């Protein structure tokens, strides 16, 4: 039997609220299927499963808040048959840990159902207080009111960010480096490319930055991975956490996977899709839990330089300030050029300033040949 547990969706999460099941008992699932939607303090996240099987029992009901690691459902592995004895035992243990409500068929009054439709409330997420836990009109209206409390959500998110950043500052001996990168070639190349592309196919400088960081990570594996249980584990693939700020305040840094092996077009598509899903609140669990390095880009309205705080358990953050024109001396000549300040915050337990400087120099070199990115 397979136990499907609530995964940690980032180091700032210790519990989650189950919003919705995407599967029911008897459904077969395969690796990567979305089986549930869980609300962290930051976002509603589509939780994927990484094993194959048939859903046996949904243990936790929508609406329940449970700690990371709680068994949410049990599944039968391929070839396994029903064994009720085991299931009962498991759900009993779990109930004593987290006391989640058991799943039951939703009862709902016709008035409540109508109101839920009007308010765009998913009735499966509403806790019923009527007879036999039926969902009443009042329950629906309370659920709607709860959804419309951005203040609480912001306070929760601020707390989650503070927890992760405090842990970072407490545990990670940061060092910081910065360098100015000339972008004359990259801006000209981008302008030329974009003049030939329709508005729907245009590239942003941000994807050149992402790709350059990822390629540099391949040569400097000590920047790319996680620090766990007292040791560094380098990651083969580069999953870049992209810091995306939310309009209502706060930020999320979900991952774009395998950045070093994707084309600029693919990265642009992934980035656009990710930003839209962050704002719409539909992120996948793998994006939240497995970035191997963070890239933050203040964009063209931002400040000149980032002094990053590493997102644990990662060991490095690369920050780009805004691209701006600046006097530039080269071969005895002074000219005005577009430049960007790139900074590195990295973990002294894993690397040192000498390697960090070479890493930044590699990013600079890669950005001089945008056509090869």
């Amino acid at each position: 039997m397979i136990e499907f547990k609530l995964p940690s969706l980032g180091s700032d999460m210790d519990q989650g609220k189950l919003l919705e099941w995407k599967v029911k008992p008897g459904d077969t699932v395969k690796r990567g299927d979305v089986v549930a939607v869980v609300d962290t303090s930051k976002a509603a996240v589509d939780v994927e499963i990484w094993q194959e099987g048939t859903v046996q029992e949904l243990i936790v009901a929508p609406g329940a808040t449970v700690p990371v690691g709680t068994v949410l459902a049990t599944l039968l592995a391929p070839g396994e048959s029903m064994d009720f004895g085991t299931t009962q035992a498991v759900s009993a243990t779990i109930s004593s840990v987290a006391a989640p409500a058991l799943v039951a068929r939703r009862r709902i009054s016709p008035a409540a159902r109508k109101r839920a439709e009007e308010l765009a409330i998913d009735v499966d997420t509403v806790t019923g207080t009527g007879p036999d836990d039926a969902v009443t009109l009042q329950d629906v209206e309370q659920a709607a009111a709860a959804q419309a409390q951005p203040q609480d959500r912001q306070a929760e998110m601020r707390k989650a960010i503070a927890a992760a950043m405090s842990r970072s500052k407490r545990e990670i001996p940061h060092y910081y480096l910065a360098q100015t990168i000339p972008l004359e070639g990259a801006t000209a190349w981008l302008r030329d490319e974009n003049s030939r592309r329709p508005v729907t196919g245009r590239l942003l400088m941000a994807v050149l930055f992402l790709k350059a960081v990822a390629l540099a990570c391949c040569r400097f594996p000590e920047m790319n991975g996680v620090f766990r249980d007292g040791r560094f584990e380098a990651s083969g693939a580069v999953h870049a956490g992209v810091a995306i700020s939310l309009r209502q305040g706060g930020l999320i840094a979900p991952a774009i996977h395998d950045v070093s092996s994707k084309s600029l077009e693919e990265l642009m598509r992934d980035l656009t899709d990710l930003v839209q899903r962050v704002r719409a609140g539909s992120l996948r669990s793998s994006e939240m839990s497995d970035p191997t390095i963070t890239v933050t880009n203040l964009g063209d309205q931002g400040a000149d330089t980032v002094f990053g705080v590493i997102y644990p358990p990662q060991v490095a953050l690369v920050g780009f300030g805004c691209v701006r024109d600046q006097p530039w001396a080269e071969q005895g000549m002074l000219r005005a050029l577009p430049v960007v300040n790139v900074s590195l915050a990295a973990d002294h337990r894993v690397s040192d300033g000498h390697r960090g400087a070479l890493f930044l120099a590699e990013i600079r070199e890669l950005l001089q040949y945008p056509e090869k990115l």
Partner: protein
Amino acid sequence: MYEEEIRAAVLATLKTIAPELQASEIQTDRPLRNQIDLDSMDWLNFLIGLHQRLKVDIPESDYGKLGTFDGIVSYLAGKLG
């Protein structure tokens, strides 16, 4: 297309990116992007939205004419004229 319709279309497109935006909050003759905090991705999505809504393709070389809300409206009025 009348200018009022273009104004409404621009505002509606902006609201898909900044849902909290109120028309009365926009100073239409002041720089738009930092007024309502549009990053480069928001800006590109705004232009894609205008493209889909009004069937205009806006080249990057024209971005300089799109600094204010009024500027965007008169640019589009010229294009759609």
